[in-house]
C-alpha cells in the first residue's frame, strides 16, 4: 500500500520577471524519504513554501494528502510539519514552553500536549534541558527542538529545509539518525539540502534541483548509475602477484595506479571482489586487503552539475 502524499504538477513561481521555480513535477509516496538537492538559490525553499501553501504558486497545482494547501491550509498544516531553514524559537521561553505554544496554536488539549511534549523531548534527548531558556541552546539543540515540535504534533508528513546546515559532524549525525527514525515509523519526509553525503544516508529517493527545475529524480543508485560509468571503486593490497595481468581478463575494469607499491585501485561496473580474490589466490599471491565502495552520491552530484554546466 503506497499512497501519494505529496503531488505537484507544473509548479512555478515567478517574482516579476525572475523565475524562481519553473514547472516542477514531484511525487512523494507514503513512507518515503525524499531529498531535494541542489545548490543555494536553486528554488528548493520556494518549492517547499508552495507545497505548504505559505507562498502562492504562479501556476501549477499541489496536492498534499489529497488536499489543496492553498484552499484548505488548516487541514494540510495539521498533518504537515515544517522545520524551516535556521529555525527560530522564542529565546526568552524554555524549550518546553515553546512547544506548548505551538501545541496551543494547534488546538491541542493542555494535558495531552504536555504528555506528547515530554515524550518528544525525551526522544530528541532534550528532556534534561527542556526547562532552560532556548536562548542558551546550541544550534544542534534548536534543530532537535524543531524535530520535537513535529513529533509532539504527530505529523504525518515532515518537510525539513536544510536541517543540518551549520551543524558540526557530530550533531549532523545525531540529527540524521533521528530523521531516519521518523521514516522508519512511517512518517513521510521531504528533506532539502545542498550537502549530499548527509542526505544520502537517509533518502530513498532524490530530486536534483537546478535553476528552478528538477534535473533528475530517482533513487540514489539510479543517480550513481546514470552519472558514473563505473559503479564500483575497489581498493586492494596484495603481494607477490601481478595485478595488471589478472585484471586484463575482466571486462570493463580499469586499473588506476595509486603510486604505492602493492596497492591498487580499480574501477568496475560490478562488484568483482570474489572473482578478484579467487584469481589472486590462484596466482599464489598474498591478498592483504580488498575493499569496494559505491560511487558516493556526492561524487555523482558533483558530476551531475558539472554535466549540466557543460551543456549550458
Amino acid at each position, binding site marked *: 500500500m503506497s499512497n501519494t502524499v505529496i503531488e505537484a504538477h507544473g509548479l512555478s513561481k515567478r517574482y516579476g520577471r525572475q523565475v524562481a521555480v519553473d514547472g516542477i513535477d514531484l511525487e512523494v509516496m507514503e513512507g518515503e524519504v525524499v531529498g531535494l538537492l541542489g545548490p543555494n538559490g536553486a528554488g528548493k*525553499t*520556494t518549492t517547499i*513554501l508552495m507545497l*505548504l501553501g*505559505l*507562498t502562492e504558486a504562479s501556476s501549477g497545482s499541489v496536492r498534499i494528502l489529497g488536499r489543496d494547501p*492553498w*484552499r*484548505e*491550509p*488548516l*487541514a494540510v*498544516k*495539521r498533518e*504537515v*510539519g*515544517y*522545520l*524551516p531553514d*535556521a*529555525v*527560530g*524559537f*522564542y*529565546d*526568552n521561553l524554555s524549550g518546553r514552553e515553546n512547544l506548548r*505554544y*505551538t501545541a*496551543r*496554536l*494547534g*488546538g491541542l488539549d493542555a494535558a495531552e500536549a504536555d504528555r506528547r511534549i515530554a515524550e518528544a523531548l525525551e526522544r530528541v534527548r532534550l528532556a534534561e534541558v527542556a526547562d532552560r531558556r532556548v536562548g542558551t541552546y546550541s544550534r544542534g539543540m534548536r534543530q532537535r527542538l*524543531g524535530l520535537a*515540535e513535529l513529533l509532539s504534533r504527530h505529523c504525518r508528513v515532515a518537510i525539513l529545509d536544510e536541517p543540518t546546515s551549520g551543524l558540526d559532524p557530530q550533531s549532523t549525525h545525531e540529527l540524521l539518525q533521528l530523521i531516519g527514525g521518523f521514516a522508519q515509523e512511517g512518517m513521510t519526509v521531504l528533506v532539502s539540502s545542498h550537502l549530499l553525503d548527509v542526505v544520502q544516508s537517509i533518502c530513498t529517493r532524490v530530486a536534483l534541483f537546478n535553476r528552478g527545475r528538477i534535473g533528475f529524480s530517482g533513487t540514489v543508485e539510479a543517480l550513481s548509475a546514470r552519472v558514473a560509468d563505473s559503479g564500483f571503486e575497489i581498493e586492494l593490497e596484495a603481494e607477490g602477484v601481478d595485478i595488471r595481468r589478472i585484471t586484463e581478463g575482466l571486462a570493463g575494469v580499469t586499473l588506476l595506479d595509486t603510486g604505492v607499491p602493492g596497492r591498487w585501485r580499480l574501477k568496475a561496473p560490478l562488484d568483482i571482489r570474489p572473482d578478484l580474490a579467487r584469481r589472486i589466490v590462484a596466482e599464489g599471491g598474498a591478498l592483504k586487503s580488498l575493499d569496494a565502495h559505491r560511487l558516493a552520491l556526492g561524487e555523482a552530484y558533483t558530476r551531475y552539475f558539472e554535466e549540466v554546466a557543460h551543456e549550458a
Partner: protein
Amino acid sequence: MKREGSPFKGVGAVALKEAADHITSARMHLVMLLLLLVLGAALYGAIGQIKATTAQNAFLFLQLLTTAHQPLPSFASMLGFLLPLLAIALGFDAVNGEFNRRTMSRILAQPIYRDAVLFGKFLGGLLVMAIALVTLWLLMTGLGILFLGLPPSADDIARGLAYLVATLVYAGIWLALAITFSTLVRAPATSALAALAVWLVFSVFWSMLAPVLAQAISPIDPFDPMSLLNQFYALQDISRISPATLYGEVSSILLDPTSRTVGPVFQEQLVGALVGAPLSTGQSILIVWPEIASMLAEMLVLFTISYVVFQRQEVRA
C-alpha cells in the same frame, strides 16, 4: 476562492502569549515605571491643589484627574501624552520581530491563518494596556480615598469607566500605528523611530502646524466676520486629524460634567442655559461620541493597512 477554516483559530493562544511576553518584558517595566512616576507626581500635585481649594467644586473626585499643579500637568493630560509611548513600546516589533527571530515561518506553518497572528498581537497588546490602565485608575482612586477621604460616587465611577474605555481606544490607535510600521519596515529600530516620529508630530507639533494650515486653507477676510468662524472650523477640522486632539476633547468633556461643548458657543445658544450646571454622564458621552467614533475609525484604518500588507508579505525572511 473560498478557503476553509476559521481565521480566528489560534487568536486566543497568540493573544495570551503576547500578553504574557509583554507583562514580563523589561521594555514594559521601564515604560510603566515612567508612567507611574509621572502620574504619581501629577496626582500628588492635584491632591495638594484640591486640598487648598476644597469648597470650589462639587466634582472633587474627577478633579483628581484634571487638576494641574504647576509645573506639573494634570493626570489626564500626562496620560494622554505618555500612553502612546507604552503602545509603541508594545507594538513596534510585533511583526518584524518575528521575522528577525526567524519564528514567523514556523508559526505560520502551524494550523492557523495569518489573520490569527495579527489579531492576536493586537488583542494581546490591547489586553496588557487595559490591565495597565485599570491598575492606574484603581491606584488613583485608592490614593484619592486615602488622601482626600472621599469615596467616588456612582456617577464618578461611570464617568471614570467611560474615560477608561476612550483611553483604551486612544491607546489602540497608537498600537495599530506601531504594528503597521512593524509590518511595513523590516528593521525594528526603524519602525520604532517612525512610530515615535508620528507620535511627536501629533502630540507636540500638530497644534503648532494646524493654525498655519488653517490660515492657508481659509484665510481671514477683515471685511467678512464669517471668515473668522470659517477659519476656526478649518482649524478644528485639521486639529482633529490628530488622535491626540480627539482624545483631549473626549477627556475634557467626560471628566468635567460642567463643560458642554468642544466647539464654539454663540450667545443665543446660551439663552436659558444654566451655566455651570452639570450634565448627566449619558449626555456627556453623547457630546463626544463623534470623537470616539473617529478614534475607532483611525484605529481600524491603521489596522487594516497592516492587515493587508501582512497578508501579502512573503514568508521568506
